[in-house]
């Protein structure tokens, strides 16, 4: 099993290299630094000197892949690729357009992101699974049908609506909690984004879990459990839930590391100083270094999630653990 995990870790390396090359191609080959400079400076102020100056400022004044003017290892290291892309492997993300260290920014913004995303994730999971179990317990009754219909309606509503509507309702009509902002990160700042985040996911997630439960409940071992004389609740909670954990984990564990990245929409609407709003701001300001850094960080965390998923399998599935 350890060998298996080590193999997964080793397998992650070429994927990260792939992501790195992809971002490099996207940011420096599709459009050359000259193009970016032209765009950033605005059409009117473009002069060759201005472009050179901009490139020098941002550290884009080097060849892309091979520096024929440098000597020895410098041929490879004194390039944009080495400084801007390869350096991300050691989590050195460089500086944003406003001159701040991206790594430092990421470190300080992870906290607020997590403060919103983690409760949303945990409460959400609990809600969705319970709702799905409820529908499964009452399957093929009016309650189940109504539940599914509710899910379909809820998942047909835009996520933007939940945020705008929720914000309006709670903060404006009822004056309960601040409409946005993070302040000291206290409960009153966190509660609204979390509730809205949970409600936003109810439709699709509960329905998905219900499908999983229903698939499990049709299996032969469930019939065996019933033939033992177990009550329907016992069957559902001890037998079905344990087995359904395996497909549920596939979709759930992988996002845990990504919680650090926060949610783009929620954070920007509620003014949470997390990584999500950082990303949005960078997109709006067309700050390529930050977007690049976030892309790399995102895939790093995703791969961490994949490995975590594998580990979680070994915990719930004896077939993986013992063979």
């Amino acid at each position, binding site marked *: 099993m350890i060998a298996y995990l080590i193999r997964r870790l080793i397998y992650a390396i070429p994927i990260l290299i*792939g992501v790195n090359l992809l971002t490099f191609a996207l940011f420096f080959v599709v459009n050359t630094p000259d193009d970016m400079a032209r765009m950033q400076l605005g059409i009117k102020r473009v002069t060759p000197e201005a472009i050179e100056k901009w490139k020098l400022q941002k550290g884009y004044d080097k060849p892309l892949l091979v520096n024929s003017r440098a000597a020895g290892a410098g041929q490879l290291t004194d390039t944009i690729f080495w400084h801007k892309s390869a350096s991300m492997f050691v989590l050195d993300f460089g500086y944003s357009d406003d001159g701040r260290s991206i790594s430092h920014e990421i470190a300080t913004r992870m906290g607020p992101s997590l403060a919103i995303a983690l409760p949303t994730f945990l409460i959400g999971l609990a809600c969705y699974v319970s709702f799905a179990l409820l529908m499964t317990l009452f399957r093929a009754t009016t309650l189940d049908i109504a539940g599914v219909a509710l899910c379909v309606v809820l998942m047909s*509503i835009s*996520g*933007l*609506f939940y945020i705008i509507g929720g914000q309006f309702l709670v903060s404006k009509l009822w004056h309960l909690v601040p409409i946005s902002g993070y302040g000291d990160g206290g409960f009153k700042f966190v509660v609204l984004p979390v509730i809205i985040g949970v409600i936003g996911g109810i439709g699709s997630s509960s329905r998905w879990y219900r499908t999983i439960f229903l698939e499990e409940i*049709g299996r032969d071992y469930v019939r065996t459990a019933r033939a033992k004389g177990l009550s329907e609740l016992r069957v559902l909670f001890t037998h079905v839930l344990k087995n359904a954990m395996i497909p549920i984990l596939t979709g759930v564990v992988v996002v845990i590391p990504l919680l650090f990245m926060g949610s783009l929409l929620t954070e920007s609407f509620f003014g949470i100083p997390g990584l999500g709003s950082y990303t949005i701001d960078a997109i709006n300001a067309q700050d390529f270094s930050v977007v690049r850094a976030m892309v790399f960080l995102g895939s790093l965390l995703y791969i961490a999630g994949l490995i975590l998923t594998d580990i979680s399998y070994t915990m719930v599935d004896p077939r993986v653990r013992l063979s």
Partner: protein
Amino acid sequence: MMPVILWSDALVFLLLGACCVAFWHIRRHEHLLLPWRRVGRSAVAMCSLLVLSLFVLVGLLDTLHYRVALNGAYSPEVLSVFDKLAEPLRLHTEKTYSAPLAVALYAKESTTDEQGRVVRTYPRLKYGGAHLPEASGYDVARRALTGAIAGVLAGLLLGFKARRAIGVTVVILAALIGMTLNLAAVYHVLGTDKVGQDVLYLSLKSIRTGLIIGTVTTLVTLPLALFLGVAAGYFRGWVDDVIQYVYTVLSSIPSVLLIAAAVLMMQVTIDTHPNWFDTAASRADLRLVFLCLILGMTSWTGLCRLLRGETLKLREMEYIQAAQSFGVSSMRILSRHIIPNVMHIILIALVMDFSGLVLAEAVLSYVGVGVDPSMISFGTMINGARLEMAREPMVWWALAAAFGFMLTLVLSANLFADAVRDAFDPRLNRS
């Protein structure tokens, strides 16, 4: 008048052609028709299909583009047949915000009255309710009622032979349309936005954008996912390794970030080559097509993984082994045995993806990496209206209209998708 075929139009026509070919093909094969009959038996599916086809109709009318001849040259403005049909809506722009069915602007303005005094009043609208001396609830009610009655009559005429649920849907839809048409002639049914454009017109125009995002994307997704997924599953070995590597790399980047990065780069390209486009519409359109391309590039991996898994299962089926023992070529096995047997997965995935893509468009446009800001879409409508949330009293109608139309579209798409899945998924019990 010069017909204009934008890139997205061409792709829509391509899709339409593909649908017609598929339709014709399915008509001739009883076993292909069978699951569709099951879809047809579902009242929910047929009702949602009815709603969807109205949306598609508007979208298609909005896809036939042309430029008007203007003393020798052509106008730089690209119009569509829908624009022509909805000309009053398009041209009747007010000064700024007005509430639905209002006859006056939403905010007081200083005007000079006949006596030359400066007074703060709600100025009357140029078009909305211009036939009335003053606001009249009675006129609105009368017009709504006559429109609705005409609609109901037309609906009864159209739907009297249909099954009950469908007939009811037809009548309700017809009543709604009749009411709206009758009111829209003299009112702004859903109000006007900041620059005085009719919100109903904007909402209807947004439909095309949503539909294109939801469907044209599949033109990218489908071939990639199908060929790579099936090839990976069937050939295994290094082919599988390479394809798996590619899709793991792509799917490991959070999709919003990948889309954001790609759209930003596309924006740079578009901005640095302004000479590529002869009209603003074609520039916005190209951005839309690119957005579909990027969405397709980021969303094929899920379907690809699904198809790979299914192909791995299928290749062990005995009929494939029988074909192999005849020495049938791999290409032929793929095209005759594997692809026909994964088509239901593709169809289910595509109809299920549609609503997700429509919703994604709104979010992306809001984030600033969606469609061109000049293109009318649900996302840009919401983005524009959101800023007015803080106003007292609130300007709610543009938001409500965008969300309402989007909900109707996505809900009916979801319901239809569910029915398709129920009819095509062999794992579901059909007793």
